[in-house]
């Protein structure tokens, strides 16, 4: 599906209206029957009346429009016959968000109201009813509003591209079309316009990914490539007959080639994650289990570097909504990072906190340090989070470095990350995965005090019993 699915309460009010129609018919017939018993001389007339009421009730029920939308749709339509309900269903079922906007007065912005919205539009804009709200309260983009005005009062259809907000940017194309005016309507006036939105995020992202990948790859591969060709030249030249120098150069070249390989792999995975950023993952992952697996996997390297990893994981586990591999990569990158900045004999603490609100999840964790949020999800009321924290006791970072940590290829000046150089993409990847998961990332650090990275993921809803 091209858009997020957030549950939106849609009340099928029309069915209750139908029920009342049937019930009142029944009551009328009952009253007539009682009257007939009491006054036998009128029985003939009353029987005829009861038959008429029953017939009318049956007629109303015969063609049941299922939801409120179609009832309203019916009101405007002149004569669509039995197909009106079908058209209503089609309108409702279309994947693209559709709004029908009523005009009101030309100079009154509060006159632009949503007369009708299909399910996709209600989902997107979190609307509760089928219509009635102000258009500006769901869509502020001035060019779209202008286009709607043009369609309403100038009868001109236009298309507008705009970028929708949110942590995950969405590119929309809005098609605005004038509709023939309806005289008999509760929509405050005659003029109507159709506003159809189409999600073009995928196309745009593909384009951007290609451009970004080329730019990043060419820029970052240039340095190791230059050094490789330099060594090759030396090996072909005066180091040709020097076995000792040759071995040394070949070792350096192997390291550089390895770095280039990792760089390409990281760039590719970053592009892939960015491409999917607007599609929230749907799986169910045990965060504690994923973390334990990663800790096991890195234990070889940590032992080699004489760093102890303390992991305190809850026994019950922590079920979050997400993609298992990507969540494992977040934990992996955070622990790798902590390892890089830990000296021999140091410790790394990994912990998991469950059932936190967003504010608790993003709160400061170091009394004397500086806290900064590197990614904050859109606020959703009632959403709880599980947090995985990774603490190292390395050199730490000053406040001014914190905002730039998740930038690609950003390096804190004057810090060595050890012999196994990173690609400079680790935290950028972490951030993008977290944004895709609608989670948050924050860092606490101070020079000399190490750093705490905290990544939070939305808790998965309890499985249906």
């Amino acid at each position, binding site marked *: 599906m091209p858009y997020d699915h957030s549950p939106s309460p849609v009340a099928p009010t029309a069915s209750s209206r139908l029920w009342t129609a049937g019930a009142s018919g029944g009551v009328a017939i009952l009253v007539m029957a009682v009257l007939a018993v009491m006054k036998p001389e009128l029985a003939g007339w009353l029987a005829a009346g009861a038959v008429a009421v029953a017939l009318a009730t049956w007629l109303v029920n015969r063609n049941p429009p299922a939801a409120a939308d179609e009832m309203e749709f019916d009101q405007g339509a002149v004569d669509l016959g039995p197909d009106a309900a079908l058209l209503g269903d089609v309108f409702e079922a279309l994947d693209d968000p559709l709004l029908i906007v009523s005009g009101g007065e030309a100079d009154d912005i*509060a006159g632009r109201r949503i007369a009708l919205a299909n399910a996709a539009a209600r989902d997107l804009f979190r609307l509760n009813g089928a219509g009635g709200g102000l258009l*500006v309260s769901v869509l*502020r983009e*001035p*060019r779209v509003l202008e286009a709607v005005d043009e369609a309403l009062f100038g009868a001109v259809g236009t298309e507008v591209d705009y970028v929708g*907000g949110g942590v995950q940017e969405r590119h929309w194309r809005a098609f605005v079309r004038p509709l023939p005016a309806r005289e008999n309507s509760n929509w405050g006036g005659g003029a109507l316009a159709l506003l159809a939105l189409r999600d073009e995020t995928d196309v745009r992202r593909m384009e951007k990914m290609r451009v970004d990948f080329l730019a990043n790859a060419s820029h970052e591969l240039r340095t190791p490539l230059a050094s490789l060709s330099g060594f090759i030249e030396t090996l072909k030249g005066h180091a040709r007959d020097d076995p000792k120098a040759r071995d040394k150069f070949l070792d350096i070249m192997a390291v550089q080639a390895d770095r280039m390989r990792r760089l390409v792999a990281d760039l590719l995975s970053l592009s892939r994650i960015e491409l999917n950023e607007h599609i929230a993952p749907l799986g169910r992952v045990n965060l504690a289990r994923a973390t334990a697996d990663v800790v096991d996997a890195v234990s070889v390297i940590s032992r080699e570097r004489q760093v102890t990893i303390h992991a305190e994981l809850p026994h019950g586990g922590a079920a979050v909504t997400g993609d298992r591999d990507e969540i494992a990569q977040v934990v992996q990158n955070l622990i790798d990072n902590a390892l890089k900045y830990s000296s021999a004999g140091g410790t790394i603490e990994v912990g998991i906190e469950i059932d936190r609100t967003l504010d608790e999840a993003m709160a400061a964790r170091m009394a004397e340090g500086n806290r900064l949020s590197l990614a*904050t999800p859109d*606020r959703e009321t009632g959403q709880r989070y599980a947090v995985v924290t990774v603490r190292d006791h390395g050199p730490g970072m000053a*406040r001014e470095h914190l905002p730039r940590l998740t930038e690609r290829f950003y390096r804190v000046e004057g810090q060595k990350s050890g012999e196994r150089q990173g690609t400079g993409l680790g935290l950028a990847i972490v951030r993008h995965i977290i944004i895709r998961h609608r989670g948050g990332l924050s860092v606490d650090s101070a020079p000399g005090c190490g750093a705490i990275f905290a990544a939070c993921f939305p808790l998965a809803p309890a499985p249906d019993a």
Partner: protein
Amino acid sequence: MNQHTVKAYGDELNQLTAEVVRMGGLAEAQVADAIESVARRDVALAKAVVERDNRLDALHRDIEKKAIRLIALRQPVASDLRRTLGAMKLASDLERTGDLAKNIAKRALILAEAEPMQPLTRSIERMGRLVSNRLRDVLDAYTASEIERALSVWQTDDEVDEHYNALFRELLTYMMGDPRTITACTHLLFMAKNLERIGDHATNIAETVHYEITGEEMLGERPKAVPGPGEEPTPTPHLSASPDAADD
């Protein structure tokens, strides 16, 4: 709002709110377009931003006029009065935001003539996106009367300050490294300052939204970043100190 006995009164109030939201949308678009014109060196877009600013000014005047009319004719009290005053306050914050966006666009016009400075404009873009998100959040909070969302914008004001300080350092490094970049870097620095100001206006709006809903001032200290090396403790007239581009 539907309890008003006189229907037109409620309509007028709703119209005022709707006008403010529309103005907010326009201001948002101005900020986003201004940032994009910097990032893509898009001269046409920058010119469009500069031209569109007078529409914001007109909306501002219009909202103020309507609010004054409403106060004079209907004498609103309690929450209605707060809504009316809130609309006026928001309108002036948004108008100011538009001015700052216009200033960014003007500087983008000048920068487009100089050599491209990729990494720096990227930093501006990043900060700009952060500020636009805050503006969007706070306007969403206003349209939906969501106090929680407004509070979260108010509480995270230090993020913008952090970005500003980081950018300040980055720019200084560039200027020290290559004095030929000083002109361009100075423009970028003012852009960053303008963005930081826009962030402050978003915080102001959050305060107004809080006041409008609860009738109480926001109490407590706003989280503040440690001032960077270039930050004077006292406010300085940043805009007037800039070269000719800042003549708004």
